[in-house]
């Protein structure tokens, strides 16, 4: 209370007389740190501390007698990362990327090329093509459950997407991801296409480029930064897929759809956390490579200033 009463005249005085350069800058820095504090606390507790914990859990494992922890050391890392479980998870994850990213990209480009026209009613088609944005991973998984589930699915007996066979189950699951991502892929490619200047296309037409050559020689190269960005987004999305796998196959049959994230999820309990932590660090390595690619792309396209 007293301070508040005192505060007023001080304010006036400081405004009347220019404050020293140092104190202004110190106050600005203090304000900045105060504004950053909430975000930094969240990042510290839920991003950086866990990273350190992953390393610790990876090095130690619970002792056989359940009292205290035994140091497994770096050998723990090589054992898990070189082990059959991790390698098969990695391979299944890579296959999932191959099943979802290229077909999704091609379909998304096709939709965007078709919808990038000045036609009556084109907005209706654009809305339809972007509609799968409204579908979450779980919703798209339920939609495809009713299509490909071996017992009740409308196409449950089609052999090349059957969820009851190890050789085709992953592909069956991947259809739901591909479909779910169509909307996102479409809107990103369409936005890129709309930024291509009409004069460029007109010039290509005057040079005698047919529609096919215009697409492959002019349009796609011009929007390649957006396509590259999309590839990264879809890849990250693919190796983070979880809901579709849990809902459609629960990792089966015979572990043929256990991706890396699925295996990590299964190893979150205290008894298996050591193995789960090493696998998480493996996933971190993957994320690192792909995100660096993404930041590299952003860096080239966005000005950071200074």
């Amino acid at each position, binding site marked *: 209370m007293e301070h508040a009463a005192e505060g007023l005249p001080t304010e006036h005085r400081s405004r009347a007389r220019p404050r020293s350069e140092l104190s202004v800058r110190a106050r600005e820095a203090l304000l900045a740190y105060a504004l950053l504090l909430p975000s930094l606390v969240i990042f510290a507790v839920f991003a950086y501390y866990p990273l350190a914990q992953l390393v610790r859990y990876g090095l130690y494992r619970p002792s056989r007698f359940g009292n205290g922890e035994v140091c497994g050391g770096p050998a723990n890392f090589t054992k898990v990362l070189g082990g059959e479980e991790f390698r098969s998870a990695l391979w299944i994850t890579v296959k999932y990327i191959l099943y979802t990213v290229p077909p999704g990209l091609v379909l998304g480009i096709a939709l965007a090329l078709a919808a990038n026209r*000045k036609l009556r009613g084109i907005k209706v088609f654009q809305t*339809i*093509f972007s509609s799968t944005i409204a579908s979450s991973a779980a*919703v798209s998984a339920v*939609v495809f459950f009713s299509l490909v589930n071996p017992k009740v699915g409308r196409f449950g007996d089609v052999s090349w997407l059957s969820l009851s066979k190890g050789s085709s189950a992953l592909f069956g699951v991947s259809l739901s991801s591909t479909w779910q991502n169509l909307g996102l892929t479409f809107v990103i490619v369409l936005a890129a296409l709309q930024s291509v200047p009409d004069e460029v296309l007109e010039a290509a037409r005057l040079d005698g480029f047919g529609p096919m050559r215009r697409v492959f020689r002019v349009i796609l190269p011009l929007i390649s930064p957006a396509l590259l960005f999309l590839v990264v987004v879809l890849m990250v999305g693919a190796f983070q897929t979880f809901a579709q796998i849990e809902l459609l196959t629960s990792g089966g049959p015979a572990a043929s759809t256990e991706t890396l994230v699925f295996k990590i999820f299964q190893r979150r309990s205290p008894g298996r956390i050591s193995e789960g932590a090493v696998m998480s660090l493996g996933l971190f390595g993957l*994320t690192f490579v792909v995100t660096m690619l993404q930041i590299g792309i952003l860096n080239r396209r966005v000005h950071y200033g200074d």
Partner: protein
Amino acid sequence: MATERNAPGTRKLLSDAVSYVSLTALSLLVLFPIWLTIVRAVSPPFEYIEAGQPFLPVNADLGVFGDAWREGGLGRAMLVTVAIAVVITVAQLATSIAAAYAFAFLRFPFQRLLFGVVLATMLLPIEVTLVANVRTIREFHWLDSVQGLTAPFLASAFGIFLLRQSFRGLPPELRDAATLDGLGHFAFVRRVVVPLNRPAIGSLALITLLSAWNNYLWLQAITIKPEWSTLQLVLRRVTIQQPDRINVGVAAAIISALPVLALLIVFQKQIIRGLTAGAVKG
């Protein structure tokens, strides 16, 4: 518009016709799974299979949506989902606006380093930190609680980055003018920065809302009691536990997608702007 210009008459008409045919074909491809889902929902499962699983509804019965609502406990699940999504969105807007303001308008030691610290969290998505974070939440006794369900998402590098880029689009003289007018930092943010950056802030809000609504892995990892299930988690239970009554499962999926669909239709422009941020603008 373009269609009205009838210089090369029939050729234009023909190419338009080809466009419409291909657009319609592609629409059918995209909508096919949705259509079959609706057919599935409204057709009683036994009769549908008896009829040979046609592409049209059999003995359509809209009561299934009521059944799904009751059996799935969708009312409660929707409440939990909305609560979590609102908490995450409001908090993330507040933390992102604050941090983005500091990075865009203030000068302070270690500015670049701290910005790097923020951006580097993009390398640590919840999938990577899951097992360690689950342990933290367990130690905090935050399983089955709003804090537990939301805490890791209360701040995001994407939000800070997006808003910082947008804030930096304002002319620097604005801040000087505001200072001359005696506007403090808080008043400047409230009266100038936020109103002038409404598009970016709106896009961020919608994108955050969508991803909070659709979140699955984290919630699945830290909810034990069914009453803390969000819509996404309920979908799994309803579908997997009774595949013979798949109509109820898909009806629940349709109900849970409707609010998002409404949002998408009303705010199409803003959502698309948020989704394409970083891809196109440079």
